[in-house]
């Protein structure tokens, strides 16, 4: 890929040093809501990536025409319309995926990452950079979701993607699934642990 250094920085920055969830603290609400299982976490990560990337491009193309006073409304309309179209297309051609997504469609529109990136990046940058920024932030968000979903499903239900992974003998020896992991507060604690580990490995991010 012939990406310039700047483009590469825009794309990969959000994976770690500028991650939307653990650095910018955006999208926490949906990170809590959908991560009790691994599968919805993955689906949500992909959907947000697609929507942020395309909404970024559209807003970036329109950025020189949008009246400043109603820019948030314009962003919302673009995001909501895009999500609705994606949902309608899925309903027609991938019905099973849509059934899983139904809960999240609303969450995508209200996802703070979406509004955050449109407002902070797409309004001031060209379409290609905005596309990369959307892609990077969506993937960075998805990455954190998958990590949280992995731990919550593993310890909460003893399964991964619905398949049992903890051997039956463990249960016979007295191992019990931790029901607390499935409840939303544990997602917050897992996010906190991820932030803790991440900051301790990246000393420059620590604040005094």
């Amino acid at each position, binding site marked *: 890929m012939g990406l310039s250094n700047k483009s590469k920085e825009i794309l990969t920055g959000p994976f770690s040093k500028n991650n939307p969830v653990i650095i910018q603290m955006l999208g926490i609400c949906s990170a809590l809501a959908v991560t009790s*299982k691994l599968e919805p976490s993955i689906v949500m990560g992909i959907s947000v990536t697609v929507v942020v990337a395309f909404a970024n491009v559209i807003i970036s193309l329109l950025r020189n025409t949008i009246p400043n006073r109603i820019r948030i409304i314009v962003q919302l309309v673009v995001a909501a319309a895009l999500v609705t179209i994606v949902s309608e*297309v899925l309903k*027609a051609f991938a019905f*099973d995926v849509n059934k899983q997504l139904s809960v999240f469609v609303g969450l995508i529109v209200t996802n703070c990452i979406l509004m955050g990136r449109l407002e902070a990046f797409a309004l001031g940058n060209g379409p290609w950079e905005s596309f990369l920024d959307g892609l990077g932030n969506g993937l960075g968000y998805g990455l954190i979701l998958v990590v949280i979903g992995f731990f919550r499903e593993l310890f909460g239900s003893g399964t991964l993607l619905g398949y049992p992974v903890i051997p039956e003998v463990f249960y016979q020896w007295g191992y019990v699934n931790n029901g607390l992991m499935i409840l939303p507060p544990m997602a917050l604690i897992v996010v906190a642990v991820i932030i803790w580990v991440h900051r301790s490995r990246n000393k420059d991010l620590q604040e005094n």
Partner: protein
Amino acid sequence: MNRDSNTYTIVYASVMVVLVAVVLAFTSQSLRSFQKENEENDKRQQILRSINVQVQANEAKAKYNELIEKSFLVNEQGEPIEGDAFAADVAKAFGQQMYPVFIARIDGQTKYIMALSGAGLWGPLWGYISVNDDCNTIYGADFSHAGETPGLGAEIVFPSFSRQFAGKHIFVQGEYKSVAIVKPGKSATGQDYVDGISGGTITSQGVNKMIFDSLQGYVRFLTSQNQ
């Protein structure tokens, strides 16, 4: 062009809204027939699952036509009435005292399938439940939901929950009792019961109420079949 003028803002907003509305309306209209077919196949799959038959969406129509002998609506007195049981919106039909019945024949045995409709924690619940030809013993059940929490209430869609209903009785000594859903480890007196979902208490209670309320409308129909 002054982007901060009132005229520009109003014109911009109006054009945007009209454009978006046209695009959305067009998408919705052009995809409607695909969506309708998907929804119908999904409904057929749900009905088939309630008689313990699992099929892919593309085979649902053929299998449904093969197994379901007839379908009709009954009223609270258990008498058949005019209407299309498959096309009926269950929640609306219940409101008008109309109850969809599907009759399936499996290995020479008749199974009566009844529709369920209720509410969970976040939104509607629905499902289908089938009974043997004694009109009392449950043969199978299937539950769906619009937006219950994944990992908690949403677990009601899995066979690990719905399979518990097979063999339970909805009448005890001729009296309508429904099947109770209790916290795992607890029991119910005077009626059959199954375990609810741990951590999905409100959804479990919703299913409990849904089965009780929905089957209540079928009581006359079931008892009249049995004579």
